[in-house]
């Protein structure tokens, strides 16, 4: 009896379950390829996953409000191209200014999505399906289809995400900072709480004086700003900007949220969940080649994991009836 309730508690706390699976995976991979779990390598894996973590956290906010942002990958490509071109035109721009600009540009793209959802009232999946094509098309118009290559970028433009501090890259630190800010934001601000509320029950939110559309708008702005920042980080990390940057990455971001237990129906989810979901995917991507599994298996494995994760989540979410009968309580 005690046992089942313990398991019940564990499973109800999806994050712990997910963290456990991640730990198991690390042990498993580490036993075949010990170097994989060396601190240095783990830091690299984290560095490789940092962008996904940030995007998943931001996407979670959007999903909490019953929306979805499919335009993040295109936003990355667009903002990345913008800052790369700016860097080519004005090589003296300090990296920090570039970072701030990227947040701004991405935020504007996000705000455009948000306006269409809020003020025009088009379903978010339609809006972002549209802007996903539009933003990526603009990358082509902006660049004339040409690539911006490493040798055209200035060293300081390239240095920011690579610089290390306490054995972690600045990119990793940015991801950690974003995650912490998001945690505080969701737990301890009125806006954060309101985002959960408008997604959990939009009608009740209106009755409580919360403007559902406005909060959806805010989450799109956040998602856009984070995507914009990731645009710069991506372009600078891989030292190239071109039209197809991060193509189809939005699906990985949504998948990370799904694995992290964020309910697509809105209102349910935690930053921990989103971050762990992203780390989980990042780990799979990095570990498979290491343990000698053909890259051709990678896609099927992550697909299978997503399906299994949502099945497990759905089981733990089921709240077997209200239990009117007395004995059942004891």
């Amino acid at each position, binding site marked *: 009896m005690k046992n089942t309730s313990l398991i019940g508690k564990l499973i109800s706390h999806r994050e712990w379950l997910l963290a456990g699976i991640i730990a198991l995976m690390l042990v498993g991979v580490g036993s075949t390829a010990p*170097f994989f779990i060396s601190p240095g*390598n783990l830091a*690299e894996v984290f560095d*490789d996953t940092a962008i996904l973590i940030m995007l998943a956290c931001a996407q979670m906010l959007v999903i909490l409000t019953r929306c979805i942002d499919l335009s993040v990958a295109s936003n990355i490509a667009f903002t990345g191209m913008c800052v790369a071109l700016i860097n080519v035109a004005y090589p003296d721009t300090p990296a920090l200014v570039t970072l701030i600009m990227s947040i701004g540009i991405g935020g504007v793209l996000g705000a455009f999505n948000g306006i269409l959802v809020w003020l025009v009232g088009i379903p978010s999946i339609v809006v972002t399906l549209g802007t996903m094509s539009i933003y990526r098309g603009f990358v*082509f118009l902006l*660049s004339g*289809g*040409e*690539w911006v*290559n*490493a*040798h055209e970028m200035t060293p300081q433009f390239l240095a920011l995400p*690579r610089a290390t501090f306490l054995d972690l890259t600045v990119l990793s630190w940015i991801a950690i900072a974003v995650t912490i800010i998001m945690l505080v934001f969701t737990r301890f601000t009125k806006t954060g709480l309101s985002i959960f509320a408008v997604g959990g029950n939009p009608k009740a939110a209106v009755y409580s004086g919360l403007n559902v559309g406005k909060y959806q708008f805010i989450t799109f702005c956040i998602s856009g700003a984070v995507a914009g920042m990731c645009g710069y980080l*991506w372009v600078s990390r*891989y*030292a*190239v900007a*071109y*039209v*197809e*940057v*991060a*193509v189809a990455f939005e699906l990985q971001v949504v998948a990370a949220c799904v694995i992290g237990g964020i309910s697509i129906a809105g209102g349910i989810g935690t930053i921990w969940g989103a971050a762990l979901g992203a780390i989980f995917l990042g780990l799979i*991507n*990095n570990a498979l*080649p*290491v343990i000698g599994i053909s*890259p051709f298996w990678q896609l099927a494995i992550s697909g299978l994991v997503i399906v299994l994760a949502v099945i497990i989540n759905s089981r733990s979410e089921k709240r077997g009836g209200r239990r009117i009968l007395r004995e059942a309580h004891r």
Partner: protein
Amino acid sequence: ADPVRVGLVVKSLGNGFFEAARDGAMEAAKEIGNAEVIYTGPTSTTAEGQIESINALMSQRVDAIAVSANDPDALAPILKRAMDRGIKVISWDSGVADDARIVHLNPSSNALIGAMCIKLAADVAGDGGGDIAILSATPTSTNQNIWIDEMKKVLPDYSQLKLVDTVYGDDLADKSYRETVALLKKHPDLKVIVAPTSVGIVAAAQAVEDQGKVGKVFVTGLGLPSELAGHVDAGSVKSFAIWNPIDLGYSAMMIAYQLTQDDEHMMIKAGRMGTISFDKDGNGAMSDPFIYDASNVHKFADIF
């Protein structure tokens, strides 16, 4: 008379290599006078995207199509249909099935390219030799696959080199980068990465630099001087090879034009490139690849 219109279909738009080829084709068109180049292709390296581009060219009733194929088989039916409609079809750079084009223009002899890549790898690995790995484009890329086969053929001659892995970066910079990083992790003793793709070689060089492996791991293969000059300076790339993509585009355009003029397809005059001969399967080669290193890369970096 109406100008002769030739559709130049490339693997993907925005790729520096193909932009240079386009410039060559334009040059040829200008030289011919009464000809026009329609430069088109998808933004990602997919066969479906190329099919749509070819469909659009057919609708405009162009006179000839010159294609660098993302997939030799998937493009075959549509190209056959184009030929049925009286359009002259050639492939260049990366070929299609034999019966779906009149001739195919290889940038160089495939055997030579394969041999050259391995030779560059052997040079950079030094006498001690070591492990080498190949970073290719998409698994379906015709020319890549042929070159890799050719490399494997000559490898036995270089007993000091050991091919440990072949990975695919899909001609996407970020994917190539990740694949390179994974290679470096998986094979700590890796000495050389051979990337016979202009996208892959840049990404690989960047990854080697970021992983702090400059001097230990070298990248070589096929690439553009303009994109690799920085990496040659950084030391991750010692030398690499490429033929002149401008010449390649120029030749493709010339050949396509000639085919619209007469039926000769064994010996085709290609302007300043001279006469190019094609075998009974319609395969021909343009010229030998040229090797670039610190001594000459900056000179050519301004050209392509």
